[in-house]
């Protein structure tokens, strides 16, 4: 291979690494942004080539390129092919991406989780910290209400944007379905959220993705029927009802793979280790896209509240006790 421009690939997502062909054509570029592009393989799988500054992900090839270099200035346009000779990758005819220094990225697991009261305290602190910054677009406005929604309540919450108002009853239905392991309610909730809202990955998708990654990270709920049902509903609806980029993201989320920023935040919120980095981790996440990071944060918070509630619900033999679980002070005034 010869080229005038060579950059190293710093990391490759674990699920993506399993798909690298031995040689020949791997994919074709179909969307180009300032610091990233999306490709589709012959088998229809979508993956991403991105500036390493955007962070790692399960389907991301992170490449080291100079600051302020745009992908189009590297000659990457829609229709360009990505080929491999078994060692390096070539985009178009001029750009060589070397793999000698590439590491395979896998998210660090949460490990042993902190006590429930401690997790709830961290959630309270985080919501307080981000509250002044919450934007009015997408689904970020649900963040202060996530504890109440997880308890299947959404009444009395007003003055939200049109997307959030539409989403609120659907989120309540979904959370109620998760707690009761009610497949129909889960499916109805998911159907109303997939592909909903602004952005290339619509807000509803980002929220569902964050929720799935959070629930998968909570080991005590990961094998529960309702979480598997949620994953199944999301992938089913996403395949037909949202953008292909979003559908691929949700497919990974359903398996527990989120972005590096999502996993870092989950370790801070759930792990027994030091949580002092929680705010920085959240800020890293909310910088993603215009509202994508915020929507994913809403999903993570909702996922954790739901996960804790599912755990309690399953553990308690007394239905009266199930409905009286107090999640935090944010629950005040929200019907159980």
């Amino acid at each position, binding site marked *: 291979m010869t080229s005038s421009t060579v950059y190293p690939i710093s990391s490759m997502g674990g699920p993506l690494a399993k798909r690298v062909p031995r040689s020949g054509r791997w994919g074709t570029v*179909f*969307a180009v*942004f*300032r610091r990233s592009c*999306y490709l589709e393989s012959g088998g229809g799988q979508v993956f991403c080539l991105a500036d390493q*500054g*955007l962070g790692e992900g399960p389907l991301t090839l992170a490449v080291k390129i*100079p*600051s*302020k270099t*745009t*992908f*189009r*200035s590297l000659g990457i346009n829609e229709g360009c092919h990505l080929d491999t000779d078994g060692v390096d990758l070539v985009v178009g005819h001029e750009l060589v991406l070397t793999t000698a220094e590439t590491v395979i990225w896998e998210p660090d697991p949460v490990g042993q989780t902190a006590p429930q009261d401690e997790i709830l305290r961290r959630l309270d*602190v985080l919501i*307080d*910290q981000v*509250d*002044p*910054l*919450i*934007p*009015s*677009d997408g689904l970020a406005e649900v963040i202060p209400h996530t504890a109440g929604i997880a308890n299947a309540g959404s009444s009395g919450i007003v*003055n939200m944007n*049109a*997307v959030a108002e*539409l989403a609120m009853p659907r989120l309540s239905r979904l959370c109620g379905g998760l707690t009761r392991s009610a497949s129909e309610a889960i499916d109805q909730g998911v159907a*109303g*959220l*997939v*592909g*909903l*809202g*602004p*952005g*290339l*990955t*619509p807000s*509803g998708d980002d929220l569902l993705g964050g929720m799935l990654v959070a629930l998968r990270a909570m080991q005590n709920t990961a094998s529960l029927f309702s979480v598997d049902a949620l994953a199944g509903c999301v992938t089913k609806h996403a395949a*037909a*009802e*949202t*953008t*292909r*980029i*979003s559908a691929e993201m949700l497919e990974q989320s359903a398996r527990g793979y989120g972005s590096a920023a999502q996993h870092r935040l989950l370790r801070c919120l759930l792990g027994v280790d030091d949580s*002092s980095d929680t*705010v*920085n981790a959240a*800020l*890293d996440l909310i*910088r*993603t*896209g*215009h*509202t*994508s990071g915020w929507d994913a944060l809403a999903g993570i918070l909702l996922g954790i509240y739901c996960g804790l509630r599912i755990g309690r619900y399953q553990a308690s033999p007394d239905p009266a006790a199930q409905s009286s679980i107090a999640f935090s002070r944010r629950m005040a005034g929200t019907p159980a």
Partner: protein
Amino acid sequence: MTVKNHVLKNMYRDSVALMRLSQEMEGLENVAQATAIMGTDNNKDLLAQAGLLADSGKSATPNDLIVAFDLTSPGQEEAVITSVQQRLMSGRQRTGGGAGYRPRSMEGALQTLPQANLAMISVPGEHAAREARKALDLGLNVLLFSDNVPLEDEVGLKQQAISLGLFMMGPDCGTAIINGVPLGFANAVPSGRVGLVSASGSGLQQVICLLAESGEGISHALGVGGRDLSGEVNGAMMLEGLRALGEDSATEIIVLISKPPAQSARARVLEAASQCGKPYVISFLGEQGEHGKRASRGNVHMENNLEGTALRVLKLLGKETPGWASLDDKNRKRIESIIAGSDPGHRSIRGLYSGGTLCYESLFILRDLGHLAGSGLEQEPVGGDLLIDMGDDRYTVGRPHPMIDFRSRCEALVQAAADPEVGVVLLDVILGYGAHPDPAAELSPAILEAQKIARNDGRRLACVVALCGSPDDPQDMDQQEKTLTHAGALVVHSNALAARIASAISRGGAVPLPGGDTRG
């Protein structure tokens, strides 16, 4: 009203681009409402509920982009669609290479422009040192805009520059004016007799703007990066800058601006200043205790805030106290009116800053005045007043700096208005090269909306703006002030004064003077 949809098949634009497109379309003449959204079923329902779904949009698939708009008068559809297509394509053309020779290396650039003597470098931190070293090796002075450069690299680069007789400004240096040439974020200030070296970008801008408004210009303004006065770097480039200004015949007074330095750097700087024959004004911002006292010894005058620094320079130059240092009758009456009309239970302060040093200065001024003020980055909420530097790296990755893009601040402002505890919002607006071309136009609608939200809730919200700019800046400072004032903001030019006004409103008292007295 005529609703139209334009469907772009398999069109992918990132979320920020879609949001901007929606905003820009709503700004078009004849467009009452507009949005650009992916054509999923749920989004089509959303459009239908908003009355924005036309027949053509119903056939869109999830991978299509629906551009929906409501025309105020029929017959304008083609013009709007043409405008949308131009906006969607302009991003490609801008980044697609362009015409003319664009050197791809520093050597190539020097062949094109052999008389160049300075390289401005902005690459990721891990590559920045290598590029800076290359520039120094080529005999170029360096302004290193990049941050996240390892400290040991900064030390090595500055030592290398000194050994070669070159300047190494930065890393994380965003502002300089050399021989009248503005670099990075800088203001259109006149040439004059004040030379400055600063470890703070917005702090430097505030001082030179206050001086310019008072009719005083600058010889040079050098940035050295925020870590230059740390123990490790030990003032290496600050001392070089001070030495150069000491030798510069156009410079009559030398100003140094920095956050509190390491002891060793402090000693070196004071030693250099005391041995120079020219008057020095040294501002270690927010310095507390014995060091924090305003004092003069020989030719060296110590200050601890930006306003005091500018006032001291003017005094040394024999100038009268300028108008920006005090409240005019109009503003005084407005403050009295705000205090009279506000509920003492709803007066906490929310600061939303684009200039890091301006935020820092306001924080320590409020704390000095006894406020419980936090920056939002503490591990546990401080409670009380909250001043956020929205230009901090934590908030800007993947987004333009808030001096350029006001969306995040406008959103935060509206959010603050909905908080019943907040009675005062403090904002900075920085003008000049590199900044937004019309900040007041961006901010004013949010100020109006914020005040409306508070009013509807039976409260009163005061917006205090520190307008940092020079009369010759490209944005037209007078017009900026008028627009902001018209929106209901109380506008002053000194950041410190803005913070003291906020304190007075918050407490329902008179505006404190820097020395602790009050002025009503």
